């Protein structure tokens, strides 16, 4: 793959698998997970996701998450530009939900702001990843900035992210989304189905049993057909994700991905959850 004039960058919340990122020259800046007094970058090396979720229920204090520093961001952009790149299109976790985009903006200003275009993905996990992936494919194909931005917008409109939150315990403790937890209720044990759209995480269904929640998730997923891309997301629940895929096998693309979601999100939702990120094929129309 030849290096194109536009290079795509993103943060680790996008959950794009490393092989795809590597193949398309996508640069990923890690966000941080703070466990106890340690701040660990989610760079795919320092933090073992499987181990993190395994240990999460036993941690004394709920882990917190942190954006990269403006200094990290500046160094990150500097290293990409040093590679002979004309322009960086940098796609990130929503400003509403994270300080990442602000740090990236400060970092971009430090290296000469006109060479970096920042995009608020309005999405989470592979909902960002789908935008990053499509953008990198177009950039690699030689498309200009306008065309790539337009594609990102269309992908966003055709993306859905839904997840079954197995327990409300972590969301409640994290305090990040009080409006969400209030809309669900706290007296009964509820497994909500959440949707991410327009940088909002909202509960769209309140189920009490796993079977019903799965049934609802299936209906939501199939409503997005025809699917060009599909990722099965999970937090330490590969078995659940596989079982779910089996139930929608006929509608799933052959290259459906399994992604263990970033601990940056997982710290807030806890283990046991499954979800989907879908891209409806009509985005190309």
């Amino acid at each position: 793959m030849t290096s194109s004039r536009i290079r795509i960058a993103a943060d680790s919340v996008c959950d794009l698998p490393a092989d795809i990122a590597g193949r398309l020259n996508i640069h990923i800046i890690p966000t941080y997970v703070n466990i106890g007094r340690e701040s660990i970058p989610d760079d795919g090396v320092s933090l073992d996701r499987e181990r993190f979720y395994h240990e999460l229920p036993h941690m004394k204090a709920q882990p917190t998450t942190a954006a990269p520093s403006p200094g990290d961001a500046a160094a990150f952009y500097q290293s990409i530009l040093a590679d002979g790149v004309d322009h960086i299109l940098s796609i990130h976790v929503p400003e509403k939900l994270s300080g990442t985009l602000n740090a990236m903006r400060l970092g971009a200003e430090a290296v000469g702001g006109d060479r970096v275009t920042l995009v608020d993905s309005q999405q989470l996990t592979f909902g960002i990843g789908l935008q990053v992936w499509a953008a990198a494919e177009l950039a690699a194909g030689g498309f200009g900035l306008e065309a790539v931005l337009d594609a990102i917008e269309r992908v966003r409109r055709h993306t859905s992210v839904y997840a079954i939150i197995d327990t409300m315990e972590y969301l409640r403790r994290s305090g990040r989304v009080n409006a969400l937890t209030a809309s669900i209720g706290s007296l009964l044990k509820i497994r909500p189905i959440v949707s991410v759209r327009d940088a909002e995480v909202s509960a769209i269904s309140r189920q009490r049993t796993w079977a019903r929640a799965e049934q609802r998730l299936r209906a939501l997923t199939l409503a997005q057909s025809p699917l060009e891309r599909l990722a099965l997301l999970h937090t330490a629940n590969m078995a659940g994700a596989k079982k779910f895929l089996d139930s929608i096998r006929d509608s799933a693309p052959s290259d459906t991905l399994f992604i263990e979601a970033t601990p940056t999100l997982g710290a807030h939702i806890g283990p046991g959850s499954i979800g989907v990120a879908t891209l409806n094929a009509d985005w190309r129309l």
Partner: protein
Amino acid sequence: MATSSIDGRRLKRGFHAGVDRLSQHVELVNQLNVFPVPDGDTGINMYHTLRRAYEEIAEDDSADAGLIAARFAHGALMGARGNSGTILSQLLKGFADGLRGPTLTPSLFRRACQAAVKQAYRSLTAPTEGTMLTVAREAVECLGQADVCGAALKDMLEAMTAAALASLENTPNLLPILKEAGVVDAGGMGLVCFLQGMLGDQSAMPPGLAEHAREIRGVAAGGAYGYDVQFLMIGEDLDIARARQDLEAMGWSVIVVGDRRTIKVHIHVNNPALPLDYALKTGAALDDVVVENMDMQYQRGLVRQRARAATPTSDSAEFSVVAVVEGDGMQAVFRDLNCEAIINGGAGHNPSTEDFLVAIQQLPSRPIVILPNDRNIVLAAQQAADMIEGERVRVLPTESVLQGISAMLAFGDAPDAKADLDATIEQMSAASAATISIEITRATRDSTYGGLQIKRNDFIALVDGEIRSASADIDIAALGAFAELDLQDLELATIYFGGGYTERAAAELVERLKAPLMELEFEIIFGGQSLYPFLISVE
């Protein structure tokens, strides 16, 4: 009503006598209780409906019969409680609509009665024969017969009342559940009482009916729930014999002692307002009024609170929910699930149409879904919804509080921000139907039901409204209900404890259920409902 036509004042006196006669037979109507679950409140519901109706004309001296009928009907519509009260209010509405004009003539009377029956049938999506509806219809049908047609008003009313009584006696032949229980229809009995009162008939009920009611009442007397009401009646020329007779018809454990100037009354009733109201109507002044709740768990009982509007949880909510819920814990669950208005009520104390209207008026003007959460509250809720302009207020006819919770969980279940009311209701309806309800309560009398021998005070377990097991041991009754379920695909049982039972009792029940039901997960929640030690949803 001996003349061939009457004016508003005469009609008002007739209505008063009708209400009065029903008030004397409230207990008798209540006790014609088909199910041995403690929800026999037909008499009270009809009485409240009519009392509210009469309030509307109590100060009215109009000579215009049409006006009196219209106002009486309006009061009935507002006060309608329970299914029987609501049907009664529809009969009165139809009667008033059919009676245009200041003077009630025989031909106008016939037309109004026919309109009454038509209106009542029209108000129900699936009218059931063998109920008050049949009694009303057959009573009115006799007005078309040659010998009645053209008769004087009093003769018409007399023929109608006789036909109503005959129809009432026939109701067990139309409705198998009545036959099995060996009773006539309670609502029909209430209607007969009202007609007899209007006619000026003060005779005792036919021996067959009264005897039967007495027999049932003999068992139910001393039932576990109700109020202990004591007061003094103070007046100039009190009729103690009459007071004793009237009060005895209202409740049990009745003691009436005193003289012409002071009467001491002690009575156990389901509705403490009844004896107090009665005493005031005799013209006596009241003193030393004591109302005690005989069951600590029946705290709120019949002293209903006005609908309380919960704080709206979200201004952006597209719809609001109004639910009828009883019990602190249950109400907390509904509020937690974002129910905006809760009307305190349930089996034994049904809210009126007016209670629904008050609750609706307190909410922002957006679409509303009402969850009645009791079979006997559905019609009053529907009537309230019908009284609101357009299609803004809709009733999802949940038959139990557990169905209501399932519906509440599905409330707001929509992937699109702007779902319409139909889709919301459909979603809620499917959810409420998908959950299995187990209700455990005590039998109010000996009976056999579906092959089960049930003794008074036995615990009975209803699965989706049908009695499926009975035992003196509450855990065994519950186990019996679970044995009826197909456990395939069921994951979770939620036990709401109340009715005087503690969390510990619920935990003990779970221990007993766990062994045979290993695949189920259990959750214990405080419900605080009266009458039902355990309400269990299984899904």
